[in-house]
């Protein structure tokens, strides 16, 4: 961080800034020295901020027309679609926005995994990010319940029943979550309340996420520590803002493509059938962004075991900074880890695919193989590869590979040097 003192030019600005240093904050965000080699995978932070704001704005609007009551919720959503001015547009932005949000967050997370952004000194950024991710899943799940269609109702039933796997108190906890003896009107009411609350918790965590980021500064594609500000950095504005803006525009084109041309392709048609507590749909699937975890849940032939493994799949990510023993951050210089990284990507995609398929035959086998690899990757591969791998030479600075046309061994640091 640049620590030069900022002084507003105008007298009024100075008066205000002495009392609340908002202008200093603004100057910090503008001048914030950013590695000059950030690629487009680094634009997803800005895209995610856009997603969060979009969800909050469209969500507040939808809440003006939605009725959180078991008898009225489904009809009120149809009222939004048919009667409310531009209601169809706002609802489609909100429902597809959830998918776009997860698409962006998964790219953001895998970018961090590839370039080692979770490693020291950025562990707290990583952990706050995972908390955001957990809250996103909670918000998305509860949001999906609100239209009170068949998938809403049975999705809510299945997910809340996960808690009944807890020994001794499971049933009491489930009943407590429901506020009834099944998913019913009290459940819908509290889900609506929490669905409205969670985005603002996320917003608070995003502030902490960015604050924690601005202490060490951005990681970068070569993953080395850089002096800030220096020849290796550029000011956030206009260099990064314009790059983020361009990436955001491309993202918005894809987003708009979904909203205007295939608004229901990511949803499930059964959710246009009003909730019926007497009939379960033939094939229950969660939204696509939860499918890998759903596959892990179903791969275990034991109720409690499946639930534990599914939650472990998320919570193992919290200790990732300490499971990874490599001193080198970026996978660009890690020839072995890089291959395992892509295996993990394929593994998670495959788990997502089998999560959407019936839990039988080959799909069950694939789910089990995928689940085993998922945990092996974090528990075995990361510590062992980090320890044994012979990494490629690391450049001394960001400018160097650009100026010398490659990573000359004589100019490179040895792995054992402090990175």
């Amino acid at each position, binding site marked *: 961080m640049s620590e030069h003192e900022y002084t507003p030019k105008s007298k009024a600005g100075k008066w205000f800034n002495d009392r609340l240093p908002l202008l200093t904050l603004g100057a910090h965000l503008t001048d914030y020295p950013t590695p000059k080699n950030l690629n487009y995978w680094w634009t997803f932070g800005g895209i995610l901020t856009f997603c969060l704001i979009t969800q909050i*704005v*469209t969500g507040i*609007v939808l809440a*003006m*027309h939605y009725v959180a009551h078991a008898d009225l919720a489904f009809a009120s959503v149809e*009222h939004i679609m*048919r*009667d*409310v*001015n*531009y*209601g169809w*547009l*706002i609802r489609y932005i909100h429902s597809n926005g959830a998918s776009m949000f997860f698409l962006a967050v998964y790219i953001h997370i895998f970018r961090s995994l590839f370039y080692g952004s979770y490693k020291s000194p950025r562990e707290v950024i990583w952990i706050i990010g995972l908390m955001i991710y957990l809250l996103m899943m909670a918000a998305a799940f509860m949001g999906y319940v609100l239209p009170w269609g068949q998938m809403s109702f049975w999705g809510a039933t299945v997910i809340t029943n996960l808690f009944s796997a807890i020994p001794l108190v499971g049933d009491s906890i489930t009943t407590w979550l429901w506020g009834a003896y099944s998913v019913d009107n009290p459940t819908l009411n509290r889900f609506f309340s929490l669905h409205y609350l969670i985005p603002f918790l996320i917003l608070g965590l995003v502030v902490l996420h960015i604050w924690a980021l601005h202490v060490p500064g951005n990681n970068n594609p070569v993953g080395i520590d850089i002096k800030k500000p220096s020849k290796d950095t550029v000011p956030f504005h206009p260099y990064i803002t314009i790059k983020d803006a361009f990436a955001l525009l491309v993202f918005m084109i894809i987003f708009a493509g979904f909203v205007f041309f295939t608004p229901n392709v990511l949803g499930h048609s059964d959710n246009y059938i009003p909730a019926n507590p007497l009939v379960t749909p033939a094939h229950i699937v969660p939204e696509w962004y939860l499918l890998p975890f759903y596959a892990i849940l179903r791969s275990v032939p034991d109720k409690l075991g499946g639930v534990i493994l599914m939650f472990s799949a998320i919570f193992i990510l919290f200790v990732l900074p300490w499971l990874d023993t490599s001193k080198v951050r970026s996978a660009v210089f890690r020839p072995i880890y890089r291959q395992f990284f892509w295996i993990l990507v394929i593994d998670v995609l495959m788990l997502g695919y089998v999560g959407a398929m019936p839990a039988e035959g080959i799909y069950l086998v694939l789910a089990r193989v995928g689940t085993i690899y998922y945990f092996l990757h974090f528990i075995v591969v990361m510590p062992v590869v980090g320890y044994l791998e012979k990494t490629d030479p690391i450049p001394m600075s960001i400018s160097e590979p650009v100026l010398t046309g490659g990573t000359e061994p004589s100019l490179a640091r040895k792995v054992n040097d402090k990175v």
Partner: protein
Amino acid sequence: MSKEEKKVNRRDFLFTASYTVGAVGVGAVIWPMIDQMNPDKAQQALATTEVDISNIDPGKSITVLWRGKPVFLKRRTPEEIAEARAVNMDDLPDPQKDEERVKEGKDEWLVMLGVCTHLGCVPLKDKGDFNGWFCPCHGSHYDVSGRIRKGPAPTNMEIPKFEFVDNNTIKIG
């Protein structure tokens, strides 16, 4: 732009074009967010109300709901009509002839939005100093034609758009 001869270059054009397209895009996104708060189609569907007036005796009135607001339908006696038409225009804060407030040939029917023009309360019938309506909220007095005579209300009570479908039915809206 202090120098006169500074030419408009490519970059200026690109900036202006980008800002313009950006402004149009932002506007196109903001408008649906604003318009969604306007009355929706379900509300617009309530825009007309038909009322059966065959049971109303002279001197009596009924109140019906139209667009969520009360509408007074009063069948006035010949004496009340005469009283309304005898008023000197100079005595009215919002001068308007009684003839302008009713349909020609149907002079006995006063159809009026029952909403005080001050701050929207519903005035009480057969009250006040002018044999008409009186608003209890802030003390506005209306006469037998629904015109403001005394108190803080600025204008006469509004006459909605209405028509006689037949002799016994009025369509409001």
